[in-house]
């Protein structure tokens, strides 16, 4: 990967590293549990797991301030956990229960939290891109100094509305960071088979939007880039593009036979580039944590995730009267 890496000896505290480790591990364990519940038939429909991509949201969230907004696609569980949404509420939404963030009416792809400034959870590829620019439009209109992170994939980067949005975001200097989570496969189509140019971050050049490529398996590199992007936006210079190279270990959704890539490719990525293992090694070699410390964290995370699964199983189905609520304000 030709992406920028963080400095060899990063200026980062053990505390910070431990937080990243914890946040990424929560996403991974949560997603594994979601996969398990899907297999048991407790989660239905489409379920897109974030396993492998954890460093992207954890790194970028570390760069945000209270009040900044985020919006993403249907692969959204990681974003919700990273911005502080409650694992119980997310898991219960996956099982379609009353205790879910959308009272069971949204599902895996459609969750929101006004409190955490998380604006979904969108099921139509690319549709969240103008929506995210619109959130930034509202912030600029109100002149409140906030920035919106608009996440989309390498697949969505080929949607026409993305470029309509780039044009207007640049034209109106909207404070929006476009985060292209390039996991290298648009569902089952490799980037080289779907995308005419290799460097998606350069696609903003035509609109005057600066962009950079980031190593999405390195949480510190992601955080650095996020800070640069957010500084650019907050200073009124308009939008910024981060193409974050990452990798999804699991299928596009649960019903993905994974015939478009080799198992060796996935295995190699897991073994050599895993973002969590990467931080784990930094914690150990930097003497920030012992094996026992990390085991304790693992145990703590497992307890949170198991509790969320229990909550999601025990939370009742939504009342039938909910069918008719929330259609009109």
């Amino acid at each position, binding site marked *: 990967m030709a992406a920028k890496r963080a400095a060899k000896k990063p200026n980062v505290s053990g505390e910070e590293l431990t937080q990243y480790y914890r946040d990424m591990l929560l996403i991974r364990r949560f997603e*594994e*549990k979601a996969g*398990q519940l*899907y*297999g*048991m*038939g*407790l989660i*239905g*429909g*489409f379920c897109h797991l974030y396993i492998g991509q954890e460093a992207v949201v954890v790194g970028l969230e570390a760069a945000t301030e209270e009040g900044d*907004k985020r*919006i993403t696609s249907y692969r959204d569980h990681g974003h919700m956990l990273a911005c502080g949404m409650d694992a119980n509420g997310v898991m219960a939404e996956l*099982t*379609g229960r009353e205790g*879910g*963030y*959308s*009272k*069971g*009416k*949204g599902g895996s792809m459609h*969750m*929101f*939290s*006004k409190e955490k400034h998380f*604006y*979904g959870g969108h099921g*139509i590829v690319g*549709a969240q*891109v*103008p*929506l995210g*620019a*619109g*959130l*930034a*439009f*509202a*912030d600029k*209109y109100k002149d409140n100094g906030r920035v919106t992170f608009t996440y989309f994939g390498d697949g969505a980067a080929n949607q*026409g*509305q993305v470029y*309509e*949005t780039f*044009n*207007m975001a640049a*034209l109106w200097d909207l404070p929006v960071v476009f985060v292209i989570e390039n996991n290298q496969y648009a569902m089952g189509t490799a980037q080289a088979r779907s995308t005419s140019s290799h460097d998606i971050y350069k696609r903003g050049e035509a609109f005057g939007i600066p962009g950079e490529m980031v190593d999405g398996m390195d949480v510190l590199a992601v955080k650095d880039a996020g800070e640069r992007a957010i500084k650019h936006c907050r200073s009124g210079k308009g939008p910024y593009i981060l193409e974050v190279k990452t990798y999804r*270990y699991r299928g596009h959704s*649960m*019903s*993905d*036979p*994974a*015939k478009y890539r080799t198992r060796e490719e996935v295995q190699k990525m897991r073994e050599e580039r895993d973002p969590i293992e990467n931080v784990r090694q930094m914690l150990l070699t930097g003497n920030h944590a012992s094996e026992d410390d990390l085991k304790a964290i693992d145990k703590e995370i497992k307890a949170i995730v198991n509790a969320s699964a229990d909550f999601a199983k025990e939370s009742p189905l939504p009342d039938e009267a909910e*069918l008719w609520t*929330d*259609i*009109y*304000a």
Partner: protein
Amino acid sequence: MATEILMPALSPTMEEGTLAKWLVKEGDTVQSGDILAEIETDKATMEFEAVDEGVIGKILVAEGTEGVAVNTAIAILAEDGEDVSTLEAATAPAEAAAPADDALEANSAAPATVAAPEVPAPDLSPDWPEGTPMKSQTVREALRDAMAEEMCADGDVYLMGEEVAEYQGAYKVSQGLLDEFGSKRVIDTPITEHGFAGIAVGAAFGGLKPIVEFMTFNFAMQAIDQIINSAAKTLYMSGGQMGAPMVFRGPNGAAARVGAQHSQDYAAWYAQIPGLKVAMPYSASDAKGLLKSAIRDPNPVIFLENEIIYGRSFDVPDIEDFTIPFGKARIWREGSDVTIVSFGIGMQYALEAAEKLAEDGISAEVIDLRTLRPIDYDTVIASVMKTNRCVTVEEGWPVGSIGNHLSATIMQRAFDFLDAPVINCTGKDVPMPYAANLEKLALTTTDEVIAAVKQVTYR
């Protein structure tokens, strides 16, 4: 503790599958992510990965077994060091598919019921008090005033669209607004409907109250995903946490001689969408009163105007803060022999027909629906119960039209009151032709409405 490995559901619809191949054997240690088996569904062969780490204690379903139901225990996973020889599968299959069954029952539980006909009591209160001073205004001016008044009242309301600012509006509806409110609130967009509609929906999520002008609704087809999937559904999908308080407005329907791609009535399309409200005014007073209500409404509103009636003048009440509520039809003309229901430019044909029918001694009651979501069914039903006959008039295509929907509702709520089948006068089932004579034939006409009324009154 040992855990059961269950036959997984690998797609939203899978109920059973073939356990094609085991890739582990009893005694193997597995890590999370290791492939355990290959499973064939009706769609594909999938690899099945371990979720937990442990030792394969016992394989319960041999490879090659077909028709293995989802959630059947297929193997037992022991923790490291656990004695696997005593492990047995629990006999009861896990009860996991229950939520789906419940959901199906809920779906089929409520067939449409036929209620005994009840005479509704529609809201017949006047739109403005008697004696209110009136002024003559064009529909265009009324729409402009509605926007200006609401923008004065609420700083979160802004207007965006193609040519709304410096050009003063492609149809001059936004004339003067740029001067009055400045370029922050009256914004020219590039010609990029999908993109700017999405940006406006996002701005509404973010707390603003956008008015989006489409130069015509024909171009809104580029943006219809954002209108329906993002604006209309988010309140529901978010469990009531956030929605899109905004208005999408612009001319709708056929103009004159602009051909198939620029001549289409979207009334029935948008009226179908739960989460949207839809207005389609005819008069200037309704245009003003409904647009002001639309801008204040916390939901996304589709506001369908018409180029041909922009320049037409009507009396508009000269009072401050005049609004018309959604879901309240207007009876333009009372009558006893037939009910003519229309909306938007269809009202022109309905009113002309009623005038001519009166000369022939047929008394037509003419109802303007004004809003198509919600629809004021009560006013229509009460009228049909009085006249026993109904003709609907609209410019859109016949299949799945508003008239079709009204016919079905009248049949359900007033079947015994009908002395004749309801007739729907609609545009013809063809793309709009350019040639003047063909275009005339493609639209519905006053003469067709008169003929339909004569048919239902057996004259």
